[in-house]
């Protein structure tokens, strides 16, 4: 890499990373900017980064013995995209991430980062950095030395690496905790340190293995927004593994739904939610009814169903099984005459204009165009 200035320019850290009132509030001591305030350079870098840092998987497989954990998947993540790998446990999403990271050997196929085949490169030479699920902070090192670890490995002198690590800690507003060891930090603080450590290597791809699963729901929400903002501002690729469809919908530019080692559907979250490719995707994303109609499998969004009492032109007739109040909406579980389980989601006000009780007979209505045909495969 070049001199310190151009190095920092590569990561190009914007001011808003430390905006007030956020999880990483502005720090009074913070005076550094990654590019030294050169917006021209910032913009130029962003352009280069976005074009150069595509991540491509070309029929990548992972075999454990004879088990195919990942079964020849193809995926292209464009530079600057936030990608979420989504799926139930055992679907191969973590193995995929670990292969991109270089912590797992690729059994077959190629991984390309910035159009370069990286199959045999060690993690550090791929330009990737990983944030581990357990954070994996070194318990014997204090916060500052944890963040400075990669610099120490490069042989950067002590004073220099401490200074640069301190800048990074400042940016995640953890500078006050520089002398603490991980055991003295809360989960959220450890995560910020882990993030700072991962960013210290100036990665072009940041890999996150279920980064929010260990946090409480409130912190998870805040951290989610924070991750999204950091990603947008750094302009690098984030690949985020999660089993939560809510997380994927909130964060991803590109959501990739996986099942049994294969990609079932990849696309923007809105497309996946509105046009699920298979019944599995519809069920996994939630908020959908999967039915058979005229011998074909169709999906219907739960919030596209209208309920009424005993109309003749109903699409289906059903009994209310259960009613769950969810705040802005009400979830009504239904059992149809043909024995199917369905669910309707009604806006709170609409529902309470004419509420139902469990056991009530209701008629279901929907617009024909709301039915979406999917592949028969479950």
């Amino acid at each position: 890499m070049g001199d310190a200035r151009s190095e920092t320019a590569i990561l190009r850290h914007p001011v808003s990373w430390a905006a007030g009132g956020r999880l990483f509030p502005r720090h009074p001591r913070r005076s550094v900017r990654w590019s030294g305030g050169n917006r021209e350079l910032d913009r130029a870098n962003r352009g280069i980064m976005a074009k150069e840092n595509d991540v491509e998987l070309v029929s990548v497989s992972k075999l454990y013995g004879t088990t195919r954990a990942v079964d020849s998947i193809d995926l292209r993540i464009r530079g600057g995209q936030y990608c979420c790998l989504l799926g139930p446990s055992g679907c191969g999403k973590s193995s995929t991430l670990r292969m991109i990271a270089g912590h797992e050997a690729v059994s077959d196929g190629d991984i390309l980062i910035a159009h370069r085949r990286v199959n045999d490169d060690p993690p550090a030479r791929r330009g990737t950095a990983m944030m581990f699920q357990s954070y994996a902070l070194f318990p014997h090192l204090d916060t500052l030395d944890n963040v400075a670890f990669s610099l120490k490995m490069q042989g950067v002198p002590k004073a220099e690496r401490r200074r640069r690590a301190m800048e990074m800690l400042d940016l995640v507003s953890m500078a006050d905790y520089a002398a603490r060891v991980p055991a003295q930090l809360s989960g959220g603080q450890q995560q910020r340190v882990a993030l700072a450590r991962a960013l210290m290597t100036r990665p072009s791809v940041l890999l996150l293995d279920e980064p929010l699963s260990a946090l409480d729901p409130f912190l998870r929400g805040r951290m989610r927004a924070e991750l999204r903002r950091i990603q947008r501002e750094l302009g690098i690729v984030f690949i985020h593994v999660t089993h939560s469809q809510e997380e994927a919908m909130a964060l991803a530019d590109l959501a990739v739904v996986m099942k049994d080692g294969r990609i079932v559907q990849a696309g923007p979250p809105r497309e996946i939610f509105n046009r699920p490719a298979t019944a599995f995707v519809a069920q996994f994303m939630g908020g959908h009814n999967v039915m058979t109609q005229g011998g074909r499998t169709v999906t219907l969004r739960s919030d596209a169903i209208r309920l009424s009492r005993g109309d003749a032109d109903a699409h289906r007739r059903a009994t209310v099984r259960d009613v769950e109040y969810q705040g802005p909406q009400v979830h009504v579980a239904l059992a149809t005459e043909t024995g199917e389980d369905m669910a309707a989601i009604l806006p709170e006000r609409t529902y309470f204009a004419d509420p139902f009780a469990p056991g009530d007979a209701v008629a279901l209505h929907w617009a024909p165009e709301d039915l979406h045909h999917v592949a028969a495969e479950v």
Partner: protein
Amino acid sequence: MTDTIDTGARRSIRRAIPRLGLRRGQGAGEGLLLALPMWLVFALFFLLPLAVTLVVSFWEFTQYSIEPAFILRNYADLFDGCIDGLPYLCTTLKTYLSTLKFCFLVWAVTLVIGFSVAYFLAFHVRSLPMQVTCFLICTIPFWTSIVIRMIAWIPLLGRNGLVNQALMGMGVTDQPLEWLLYSDFSVILALVHLYTLFMVVPIFNSMMRIDPALIEAARDSGASGRQTLTNVVIPLARPGILIGSIFVVTIVMGDFLTIGIMGGQQIASVGKTIQTEIQYLQFPLAAANAVLLLIAVMLAISALLRMVDIRKEL
């Protein structure tokens, strides 16, 4: 963090006390009562003999009697000529130096072997059943008595032993190697053979606590294998290294059996000196020597602790 755990633990203990039928205020007394059996064992088998040894080391002895007294002659005898005779070393200093030499060499060799074996078991053997199997294999030497294990070396290393015959048969040497048996080499070999497991077990134990993600995190940060070893594995295995070192150092410092048998009764060691003195019923002298040995071992261990501590500062 630790504070909250402590108060939490204390609170739960306080909650548990009424359930056990213990009243508040009796807590301290009850605690002492519970600790009493351990204290008795400790006092009877450690403190008392130690005190007796210390007392006897000041007693007077002649060729046919041992008299209670408070004299420093035993200690003076130990160091007889040690100061005046410099730079020539007196017997005591020579013996200690020889013992320390064995101690250091055995410690260094068992540390390297023990660390390597523990590393292999912890990081390269993936499945638990396989780890247990390998571990049991490591303990095989302990299935027989210490004397048999030592004697087993003799047909292997002797003048006409297997090793010498093999070397001569291959034409590597034309006469048998003398230094294979009854030498420093054989003593160190036997000690290493006997005590490496004491190094393996504690180091393996601390390595098993290392989260494999830490190794990956180090690799992710660009650490080479060697850097991961020195920056992550060794610091985190430090408690195990320390405990294993204390085991090996204390055992080797007091050893007289191995050095006696494998050294052909020709090599001096402190343990052997004490044994000889006891054979001649010179109990006070042996006691004085034992006290000196105790001090030496404690010094060696504190030096060791400091040495390992310095590593942490780097």
